């Protein structure tokens, strides 16, 4: 029994991590129609910036409020990076989908190599509050606090993104802009600003995922973002492009599936099951669980 509770809760923690990574990706992919392969880089930037801040920024540190400051700095760095990327690299290429994909691929190669050139290829210990290393006993299961932290963070991020889409006009503008940028402009809206904003939010979400993911892993390394990205893509696609709620469902499905299959089945089967789930979902419902058009 406690094995099931443990697997469920840690599976949800994993799902939360996937969702954190996928949410920004989904937003950018679904709304701005950019398949952002550099998302993993944003993750890395967020993680390294947090790591750097905890060691060097006055007021920041690995514990308590200092840690919050460090994470905030990381998120700010990720946001800034995303905004710059949008302004400099993506903006001139709107409506040239493939070129955008390529630029983000190029960027992720170059960016990750740059991280590696600066901080080395090896994993570095990540500063984090002591309590994140401990476990909380829940119904007899020793549930890692890091996982619980991820679950809380993912829930907050989900709420924040939904609120943004529901209560502001930006969701509307962006969805319209993806269909026909020109026409949005012709309605008197500076669509470029809206797209930059989407990137900023995507970057912030990625950076947060990077920082919290590193807390969870205990280390930060240049390749980390990239390895999470493939699952994030799967989550985004299963959930339905652009649907943040869909991504949340998909993340839970993928996280739990992986966790249980890994425990009860043979190793490696978890990954194959996830890929199979993707293929089945796409063949039955090519638009994903929540479909292409969704307000949230």
């Amino acid at each position, binding site marked *: 029994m406690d094995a099931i509770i443990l697997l469920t809760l840690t599976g949800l923690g994993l799902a939360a991590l996937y969702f954190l990574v996928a949410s920004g990706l989904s937003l950018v992919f679904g709304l701005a129609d950019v398949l952002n392969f550099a998302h993993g880089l944003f993750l890395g930037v967020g993680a390294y910036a947090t790591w750097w801040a905890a060691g060097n920024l006055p007021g920041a540190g690995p514990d308590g409020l200092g840690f919050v400051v460090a994470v905030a700095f990381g998120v700010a760095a990720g946001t800034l990076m995303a905004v710059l990327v949008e302004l400099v690299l993506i903006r001139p*290429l709107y409506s040239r989908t493939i*070129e955008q994909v390529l630029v983000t691929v190029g960027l992720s*190669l*170059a960016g990750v190599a740059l991280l590696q*050139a600066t901080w080395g290829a090896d994993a570095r210990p990540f500063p984090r509050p002591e309590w994140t290393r401990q476990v909380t006993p829940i119904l007899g299961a020793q549930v890692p606090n890091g996982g619980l932290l991820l679950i809380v963070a993912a829930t907050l991020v989900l709420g924040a993104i939904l609120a943004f889409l529901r209560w502001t006009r930006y969701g509307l503008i962006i969805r319209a802009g993806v269909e026909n940028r020109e026409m949005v402009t012709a309605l008197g809206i500076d669509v470029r600003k809206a797209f930059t904003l989407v990137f900023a939010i995507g970057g912030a979400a990625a950076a947060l995922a990077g920082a919290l993911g590193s807390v969870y892993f205990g280390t930060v390394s240049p390749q980390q973002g990239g390895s999470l990205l493939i699952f994030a893509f799967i989550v985004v696609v299963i959930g339905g492009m652009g649907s943040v709620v869909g991504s949340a469902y998909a993340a839970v499905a993928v996280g739990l599936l992986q966790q249980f299959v890994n425990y009860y089945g043979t190793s490696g089967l978890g990954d194959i099951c996830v*890929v199979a789930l993707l293929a089945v979902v*796409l063949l039955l419902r090519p638009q994903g669980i929540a479909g292409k058009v969704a307000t949230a």
Partner: protein
Amino acid sequence: MTEVKSPETAAPPAAVPSELTEEPGRWHRVRPYLPLVALVVALILPYSTLHLPGIFEGALNSPGTLQLLAVCLVFGGLAAGYDLLFGRTGMLSFGHALYFAAGVYGTDILITHAGLPLWQAAPLAIVGGTILAGLIGAVALRTVGIAFAMVTLAFAQVGAILVARDFGGLTGGEEGLPLDVSGVPAGLVGVANTVNLYWLALAYLVVVVFVVHRVSGSPTGRVLAGLRDDERRIGVLGLDPYRFKLVAFTLAGGLAAAGGVVYCLIVGGASPHITSSELTLSLLVMVVLGGPGTRWGPVLGGILYMYLDHRLVSVGSSGAVDALPGFLSRPLSQPLFVLGTVFILAVYFFPGGLAGLASRVALLRDSLRLGSRRQS
């Protein structure tokens, strides 16, 4: 209108298939012979002791240079084959690496584990890769657009996982599987015979270009070009889009598998790198770098990409880079940094790819000529 736009989001930048247009112009006479000239140059290359410092490590006929060129040629062919899918039919597959890998591992396993001679292993691997592409295509083509890209990616991912899992020690897992050369003709083994591998690669490239060219200029090619623009329209004209797409997908898969066979011989083994989705992405980069849907663009793109991929590694470790100040030399010594930067720049400065360069130059020339005429 009640018809909702098809979700095909990722159609490549449009280019008119050159095979389908009879182009006028002054180059008209010379142009058909240019590829021939290039081929002749490629054929006599191994006889030249010319040394191009900075471009190649050794003389043109040194094994190192020939090996590098052979790898480049294979990827030129691979990119041309991928372009049949992407540039000419508008199908964005993220799993093309799978069929290439099927060729590589197929050959390697058949020779090394099953002990077959090359002349049996190679056709089997190619047929196997083609059938695999046909089967997966039959399923994946039920979806379109990004969904199609993701389904192909998913299948390729399963392939990658299977290779990494190393069932029954068949694939060698992450360490790869060196080729047992006892099943390979002696002429293809050993550094001194690198030139034969070069010729093999060249032959592969020529075959692929010829096939792609023929197919694109054929009635089927015309349908494929139409599919790229508007699939629904093709249906209303009385043609089954699914069948045509499946043909293109299978054919491209077969060409990739053949490339795999050649690559396996050149590299002398298989390693899991080639199953990764990054390979498909780099194929995409090659095609776009060169110019999708053009005859020579993807070939040039593939050759150039592979060349840079290999050469940047040695540039990165060269003394010139070390001499630079730390903030420059450190990133520059990361080949991936340079490669990534190069193709970001390429996307910006060569829109339409290398092949687009020619027409842009022509445009410039025309407008200059027009300008001067107006003045006189």
